[in-house]
């Protein structure tokens, strides 16, 4: 508990997490407002339509998670931390817990906020959360944000440099997976098993909107996809913890 409260104090006594929270929420909810206000009856409103901007928040949260550890290496505070608390694995787990919970909260706020924008700009009975898939689309982003934060934090621990870690995480999540999908013949089959593909499948798939992937086309269902995504994130975290335990601080 001490370790967690220390990591919480450390995270919130600098400004960057506050900015990340504001930017993540602003971009996601702002995009939802823009998107739903322009629907104009051409397309039927749906819960999935309000959640199109989640990627914005997701990326910002991942940057925040990577920064939470790379700035510690950048300014040497990681050594002050290990000096005060020599159990490095416990320290990093505490940091992961704090960042993941924050990411979860941001994700939930962003998703419900976006859904609220739907009610403001395109009020329609279809926005009522009356199916399991609709609930998943609005509650789900928080879980994915938390998993993505763990993923980015692990990369941060391994790479230790802000520029390197942020670039890696963003290129992977935004570019690499979609490029792999373009490889002829095998691209699609590989893509289905990539971590963020699984995360997006969980967040938006299986709804009644034309933009979401139907359940019948999924290799595994939405919830197993989430478990798969989280398993990869925590696997990466385990590798990073072994590394941080072994190497010189």
């Amino acid at each position: 508990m001490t370790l967690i409260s220390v990591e919480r104090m450390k995270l919130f006594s600098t400004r960057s997490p506050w900015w990340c929270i504001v930017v993540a929420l602003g971009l996601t909810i702002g995009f939802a407002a823009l998107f739903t206000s322009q629907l104009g009856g051409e397309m039927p409103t749906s819960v999935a339509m309000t959640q199109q901007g989640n990627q914005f928040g997701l990326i910002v949260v991942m940057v925040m998670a990577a920064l939470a550890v790379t700035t510690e290496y950048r300014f040497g505070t990681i050594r002050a931390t290990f000096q005060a608390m020599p159990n490095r694995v416990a320290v990093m787990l505490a940091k992961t817990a704090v960042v993941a919970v924050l990411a979860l909260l941001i994700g939930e706020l962003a998703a419900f906020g976006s859904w609220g924008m739907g009610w403001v700009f395109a009020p329609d009975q279809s926005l009522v959360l009356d199916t399991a898939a609709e609930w998943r689309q609005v509650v789900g982003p928080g879980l994915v944000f938390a998993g993505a934060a763990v993923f980015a934090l692990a990369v941060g621990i391994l790479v230790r440099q802000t520029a390197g870690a942020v670039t890696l995480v963003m290129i992977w999540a935004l570019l690499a997976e979609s490029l792999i999908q373009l490889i002829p013949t095998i691209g699609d089959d590989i893509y289905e098993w990539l971590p963020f593909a699984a995360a997006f499948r969980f967040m938006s798939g299986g709804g009644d909107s034309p933009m979401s992937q139907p359940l019948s086309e999924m290799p595994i269902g939405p919830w197993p996809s989430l478990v798969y995504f989280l398993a990869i994130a925590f696997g990466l975290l385990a590798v990073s913890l072994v590394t941080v335990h072994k190497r010189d601080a």
Partner: protein
Amino acid sequence: MIEAVGLTKRYGSTVAVNDLSFTVKPGRVTGFLGPNGAGKSTTMRMMLGLDRPTAGKVLFDGKPYTELKHPLRTVGALVDAKWVHPNRSAYAHLKWMARSNDIPVQRVDEVLETVGLSAVAKRRAGGFSLGMSQRLGIATALLGDPGILMFDEPVNGLDPEGIHWIRRFMQRLAAEGRTVLVSSHLLSEMAQTAEELVVVGRGRLITQCGTEEFVNNATAAAVTVRTPQAERLREVLGARGFAVAPADPSQPDTLSVSDATTDQVGELAAEQGFVLHELSAQRGSLEEAFMRMTGQDVEFRTGSSDEQPGEPLAATTN
């Protein structure tokens, strides 16, 4: 009490610290002396569990650092004053450190007061001058009121006022019965601060002894004596077992007596009725002596050490 036993750190084929053993006792300031690159900082990082030693261990009051429950309460260390987030205030920095070791939060105000930073406690640490950063680092070390303190080059880059303050401060800590280890690459600095020295060169222990003893050994004492009866005095000194340097033809009335004090020579001269025109002690410079002792291609030996003499230091890096 700090005990280092057989501490070794290898980076690939380079040996940064080689089989280093020493002890640091409470109640006095111990200097950790060596030229830049001698492995002092690496040793300190290994002591704090930050770098993993290739071999050897360090015990603080009998326990390795990583097994201390609240390490800041046993060992306070200032390794690098820049290990602070620039956008965090001095107060916030000390607060999280205090929380991590269950140290009451009032202690933060106390140590800030001790190092004279109370007025700037809420300002971001990134804007601190070097002297202020160093003071914050010392506040961090004092936070847990530890019995053992370690400072790595604490006076580097400080102005004379700051140097004086730190020097007195460390002596006060030692006088309170704490174990104080201070590293430096300046023998003249250590000669004024430390009572005991652990001297390293190229990652190896050169000697551990009292500062005075080290300075005396390192700078061979010689006495210069000028007298119109030079030849006669040379004979008398020789008969008493003093080593007198061969006469310098340009100054036939001046003698140089090694391993002697002015007291000894003066008393002998009075006893024998010599007329003296000059009697003075000659000391080699501390820096020169230090360079000679820690230099790479010189064989070294000091009186108090039982280390094997005659092994060239250059052999340590292969």
